[in-house]
């Protein structure tokens, strides 16, 4: 059962990559390839197997909250939502156009399902903890998922929120770290690494699980298992920045960059092969 679902998630992730490359044809500027491709499986698993947001009959008390704190992966969210039927093709075609609601960095629009703005790093977990606390106090069943980058863990306010969430036993809150090992200027370990992230999160009172962030089976199991009672959950998803296109992978210069010349064609061929292999 899980294997089937994992397979669906994998196909979905590669379709997202294809969709993002298509979006570059309407974008006039650079796009955040590295951090968007690294979290494709995470988002695919969330949208295909975890979040209940596709059920349009749910009210706000029941509907899960997904917060993209690493707002630069907006295009990954747009593609996932489009493929899930939550964002129209028409809207997707306005990507990065003048006056569009779907901008390069995710901006809040609750009517569209964008719970918060994510451009400024380190803000999402506090907000998510507030949403989780509200649900706890009112016995609402929704769950809160916050996706951050490993570079984003440099931000001090994240650690304020980590302490708060364990203090308040927010076991309806899940933090997912897209741990692709690179930030804008280079390797995260060489900038403000600080040793084992898992040890640090555990010491902050979080139920912490480390997974292969490109393995939808591991992601599904980690996301689907119930939080330990009274503990918020952190999933360190070990990923490859730019995963899916050979020249994006592990090259931090593809953090935010325009595709030039034949690059789009080459990337398209590689992603098409990924999609093709699954069929």
């Amino acid at each position, binding site marked *: 059962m899980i294997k089937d679902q994992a397979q669906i998630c994998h196909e979905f992730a590669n379709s997202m990559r294809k969709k993002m490359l298509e979006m570059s044809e309407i974008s006039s500027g650079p796009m955040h390839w590295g951090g968007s491709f690294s979290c494709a499986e995470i988002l695919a698993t969330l949208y295909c197997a975890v979040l209940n947001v596709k059920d349009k009959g749910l009210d706000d008390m029941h509907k899960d909250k997904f917060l993209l704190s690493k707002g630069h992966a907006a295009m990954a969210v747009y593609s996932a939502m489009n493929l899930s039927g939550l964002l129209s093709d028409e809207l997707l075609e306005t990507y990065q156009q003048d006056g569009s609601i779907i901008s390069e960095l995710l901006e809040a629009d609750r009517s569209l399902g964008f719970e918060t*703005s994510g451009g400024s790093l380190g803000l999402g977990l*506090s907000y998510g*903890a*507030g949403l989780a606390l*509200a649900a706890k106090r009112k016995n609402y069943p929704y769950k809160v998922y916050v996706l951050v980058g490993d570079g984003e863990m440099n931000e001090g*306010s994240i650690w*304020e929120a980590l302490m708060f969430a364990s203090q308040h036993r927010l076991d309806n809150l899940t933090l997912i770290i897209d741990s692709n090992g690179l930030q804008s200027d280079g390797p995260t370990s060489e900038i403000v690494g600080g040793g084992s992230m898992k040890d640090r999160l555990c010491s902050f009172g979080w139920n912490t699980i480390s997974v292969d962030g490109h393995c939808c089976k591991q992601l599904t199991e980690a996301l689907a298992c119930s939080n330990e009672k009274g503990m918020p959950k952190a999933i360190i998803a070990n990923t490859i920045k730019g995963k899916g296109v050979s020249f994006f992978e592990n090259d931090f210069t593809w953090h935010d960059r325009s595709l030039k010349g034949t690059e789009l064609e080459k990337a398209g061929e590689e992603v098409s092969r990924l999609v093709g292999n699954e069929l």
Partner: protein
Amino acid sequence: MNITSANIRTWARLGQRGAFFGIAMPEIASEKNNVKLLTADLALLSGMDRFIKAHPEKFLNTGIAEQNMIGIAAGLAMDGDCVFATTYASFIAVRSLEHIRQHLSHLGCNVKIVGSAAGVVAAKSGVSHWATEDMAFMRALPNLTVLSAADSFEAIKMAEYAANTDTPVYIRLSGGLNCPVVYTEDYDFKAGRMVCLRKAGRTAIIATGLMVAESMKAAELLAEKGVECSVYNMHTIKPIDRSTLDDIFAENDLIVTVEEHNTIGGMGSAVAEYKATLANTPRQVFIGFPDGFAEAGSQRYVWEQKGLTDTQIADRIINELRHS
């Protein structure tokens, strides 16, 4: 709220912060189920004991983590709660600025941020605990209403107003215990509408916060010397009261703005920005903290360095009129 002379005196003794959190908030929370009160570890110093005792489920100490407090407040507010979040103005308006910008200003979360000890009441603590730029920061954020209380009674009025709106508000509370009284009896508080406290002559003092009481004393001193002037309390910095300002500009030859705040970006700047759009308006004198810090000491000592005491305000106006 039971408004009597005795109560007004009691509220003044408690100061703006004590009246706001110790008197207004417990009562508001009894009437409104959706009210929450968050502090970044300043409950006792803010006089929240009564609130905590009466409404423990509506109270939350988020710890000494002001940025996180704003995010938590925003999250709590998304389900219809009206969340008050407070700490010293120096921390809430400066350290948490970006969180306020993203969650309150842009997202419009129903959070009321209350900055206490604004200005230089924590005079001996020095610059870290002063807030003389907070109005500039808050005023520049879209969708925020910016209020600044003249006395404890007005602070209570602001709490009631804020609890009955569903948009973000910044409330600037200044002074410590024994706050000077501006309003000895009930008055009509309307956000966005200045209050005329004294009307005479062709000089208008527009003041905010503790400078309202100080300006009233200055006006008395001036009257003794035969110089008449009006005094207005600009308790709402944003949105600015254009129609009253139109009348003030038409009726006066000199405008004097007085604030316990940097002269860049504060109430005086707000008045000047509007005035600059109009033709044939009177000259404006800015009294406040000229750009720069001051030496620590008693509050009056700091005010004296900046020319903010009643006698200094009066002398300055006489000098300005002489040179007009």
